[in-house]
């Protein structure tokens, strides 16, 4: 088993740059996600690209990919907030689709709504040009590792 991600998270806590953490996770890299630092927690940006399209006629981003962006943002937030050096395991995710997601930059940011010892309750929102008009919102539960090594 590689410990690359643990090393990457440790390094990111020193530097404040979480892009290398994200890039050590193949699927987040596959989506082309970019971490933009923010005092309230990482903002994940997903650039518009052909391979994330779910409706080629409109065109619009695939709903599942929007869900994946929300989940990925929650994962990055938990690792950023010093709750885990590892990728936390997801328990459940509920996504509300609010608007059609056009194939442009999509942003997401998470908050921990309740922090237990074993479980984190998360709320995540995704938006495009106008943050006051979210395209999707999710709430999710994650299992936290029992301890930080």
């Amino acid at each position, binding site marked *: *088993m*590689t*410990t*690359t*991600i*643990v090393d990457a998270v440790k390094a990111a806590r020193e530097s404040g740059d979480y892009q290398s953490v994200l890039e*050590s*996770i*193949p*699927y*987040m*890299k*596959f*989506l082309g996600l970019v971490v933009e630092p923010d005092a309230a927690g990482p903002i994940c940006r997903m650039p518009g690209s*052909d*391979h*994330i*399209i*779910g*409706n*080629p*006629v*409109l065109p619009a981003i*695939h*709903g*599942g*990919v929007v*869900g*994946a*962006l929300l*989940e*990925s943002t929650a*994962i990055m937030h938990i690792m950023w907030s010093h709750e885990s050096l*590892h*990728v936390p*395991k*997801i*328990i*459940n*995710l*509920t*996504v*509300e*689709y609010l608007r*059609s997601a056009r194939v442009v930059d999509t942003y997401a940011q998470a908050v921990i709504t309740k922090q237990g010892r074993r479980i984190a309750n998360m709320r995540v929102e995704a938006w495009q040009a106008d943050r006051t008009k979210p395209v999707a919102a999710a709430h999710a539960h994650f299992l936290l590792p029992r301890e930080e090594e």
Partner: protein
Amino acid sequence: MMADSNQTVPPEWSRFPAVTLAGMNELEDRIPQIRALGIEVVSIDGPVAVSRLPYQEKLVGDPETGVMHGGVITTQIDNLCAVALHSRIGHYVPCVTIDLRVEYLKPAAPGLAVHVRAECRKVTRQVAFIAATAWNEDENDPIAFASCTYMLLPERESTISGSGD
């Protein structure tokens, strides 16, 4: 299973192309994200559809375990719920997801394909309710449960480019 097989199809839905398994996979192949994930619809039968997604390194969500990212399964489920809805109706009525809940019962096994079965439980003129289960090798040992709500948009023009050709 509680499929609502007694419902009739409103006439305005019949103007959309009729569903076949070959046509469904042709349509899936025109969706860039579905093609990128390599998802194949294995079967459709009334309100029930099954798809398969091969394990791929590029879809890993935890490099320490090799487990695929939950978002990949979310996409497979969301997509197959629309397939089950279309199969249930028998026509490609335009639709959008309004709500999707996924329960991740256990991690997907590294190296193994993910199968999903979706069943459209109820269709009204405007809304459809679909339930789904995901597993690796044994359907009785599921890795995820999901429920999905779609809104039907029969007033919209077909979202199928070049359909019926």
